[in-house]
C-alpha cells in the first residue's frame, strides 16, 4: 500500500489548487485525506497559500453585485450547523460547497425522508449511521423548503412560460421558466426506469453550445421527478437531459434526448 499512499500524498498541491482532473480523482484523494493527518495539514497550508495568490488579484466588484447579493441573502435560508459527529465524518464538506446534486432537491429530500423512516426501525448498532443520515436528512429538508418557496415563485412569476415536450424514450418533460428571475423549474413524468449503470443528468447549454453546465442528476420516483429548480439561466440557454454513467459526468457524453429553450 505504501506506493499508492505516497502517490496520493504527492497530490496535496494539485488538490489544493483544484487541479485534479475528475470528480472520481477528487473523491479518491479525499478518502485518502480522511485517513492522512499529514496530508490534511499540508493541504490546509497550501489552501492558505493559494488564498494569498487569490487575494493578490483582488478587484473592485461591479457596483450592482452588492445589492444583488444582499437581495438574495434576505430571502435565502441558511444551512443548519452540522453536529460534531457529522463534522468529523466529513472532514472536507466539498459537496456542500459544490451543491450540484442539491439541484435535484425536492425529490431527493423526499427520498431521504422515506429512507429515514425505514432506517429508524433498525437495530441499536446502526444508531450511529442513523444519526448521520438524520443530520443529512435535516440538511436536505432545509434545502427543500427553501427550494419549494423558490420553485413556487418561478411558477407564479408574471412572466412565467410553460413548455412540455414528449421525450423520444418515453415520458414528458416540462419546463416553466421566468426570464426575469433567470430561473427554470423542471418536472418529468413517465421517463423510463433506468437500467443499472445509467443516470439522468440535467444540463444548461449556453448559446452556440459554448457554455455547458451540469445541473445535477435527476432522481425519478414512481416515474415522476421534480420539481427541480435551476438558477442562473442566461438568455438563449437550452435545457437538456442526457443518459450518463453513474455519478454523472463533467460534460455530456451524448446529445440530450430532450432539449427545451430555458
Amino acid at each position, binding site marked *: 500500500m505504501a506506493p499508492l499512499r505516497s502517490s496520493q500524498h504527492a497530490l496535496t498541491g494539485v488538490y489544493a489548487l483544484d487541479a485534479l482532473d475528475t470528480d472520481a480523482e477528487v473523491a479518491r484523494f479525499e478518502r485518502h485525506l480522511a485517513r492522512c493527518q499529514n496530508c490534511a495539514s499540508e493541504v490546509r497550508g497550501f489552501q*492558505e497559500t493559494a488564498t494569498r495568490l487569490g487575494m493578490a488579484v483582488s478587484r473592485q466588484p461591479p457596483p*450592482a453585485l452588492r445589492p444583488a447579493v444582499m437581495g438574495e441573502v434576505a430571502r435565502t435560508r441558511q444551512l443548519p450547523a452540522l453536529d460534531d459527529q457529522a463534522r468529523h465524518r466529513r472532514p472536507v464538506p466539498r459537496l456542500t460547497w459544490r451543491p450540484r446534486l442539491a439541484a435535484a432537491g425536492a425529490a431527493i429530500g423526499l427520498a431521504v425522508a422515506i429512507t429515514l423512516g425505514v432506517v429508524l426501525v433498525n437495530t441499536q448498532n446502526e444508531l450511529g449511521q442513523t444519526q448521520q443520515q438524520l443530520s443529512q436528512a435535516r440538511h436536505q429538508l432545509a434545502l427543500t423548503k427553501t427550494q419549494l418557496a423558490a420553485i413556487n415563485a418561478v411558477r407564479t412569476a408574471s412572466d412565467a412560460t410553460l413548455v412540455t415536450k414528449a421525450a423520444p424514450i418515453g415520458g414528458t418533460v416540462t419546463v416553466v421558466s421566468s426570464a426575469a428571475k433567470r430561473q427554470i423549474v423542471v418536472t418529468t413524468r413517465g421517463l423510463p426506469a433506468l437500467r443499472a449503470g445509467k443516470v439522468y443528468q440535467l444540463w444548461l447549454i449556453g448559446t452556440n453550445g459554448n457554455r455547458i453546465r451540469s445541473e445535477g442528476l435527476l432522481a425519478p420516483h414512481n416515474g415522476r421527478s421534480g420539481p427541480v429548480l435551476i438558477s442562473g439561466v442566461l438568455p438563449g440557454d437550452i435545457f437538456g437531459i442526457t443518459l450518463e454513467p453513474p455519478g454523472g459526468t463533467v460534460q*455530456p457524453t451524448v446529445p440530450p434526448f430532450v432539449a427545451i429553450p430555458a
Partner: protein
Amino acid sequence: MRASEPEMPPPEGGDQYLNGLLARVARGDQAAFEAVYDNLAGPVYGLILRVVRDPAQSEEVSQEVLLEVWRAASRFDPAKGSAATWAMTIAHRRAVDRVRSAAAAAAREQRTVEVPVPHDAVADVVEASLDAERVRRCLDGLTESQRESITLAYYGGYSYRQVGERLGIALSTIKTRIRDGLIRMRDCLGVS
C-alpha cells in the same frame, strides 16, 4: 487567546475579525454579512475574474459564491483554516467549474478556444497592495516551471493533466513541481 479580552475587538480585516463575523453570519446576522461582503467581495470577484475572464460570467459566479458564504456559514470551522481561505476556496472551485464546463463544451465543438495565458503571468499579478507585492516576490523565488505550473493551475483553472500537456511535462513530475512550488510559496509567505 483574544476571547479573554472581549472589550478589544480584533483588528478589522484580520483573520480573527473575519472569523468572528462569520460566526455571527452563521446565526443569521445580515449586518455581519455586509461586513463580510465588504472584506471578501473584492478578493472573490478578482480571483473569479482572473480564472473565468468574462466579466459578466464572473459577476454571476461571484454572486453564487457570496450567497454560498451566507448559506453555508454554519459549516465554516475556524479550526480548519481562516474564513478568507474558506471563502476563497469556494470561489476558486466555482470558477474552475465554470471554465472547465465552458472549455469542455468548446472542445466538443472542435473549436479551440485558446484562453490567453500571459507568458509572464507573474507580471500580471502586480497590484498596488503590499500583500500582492509580497506574493509577486515569492512567485519570483520559484523555479520557472514551478511558477508556470502553479499559475496555470490556479489562475488559469487548468487541470494538472492540462498543465502537463501545455508544458510538455510528465504528469508525475507536474504533481511534484506543484507541491514543491507550494511548499516554497508557503514558507516564503510565512503561512503557518
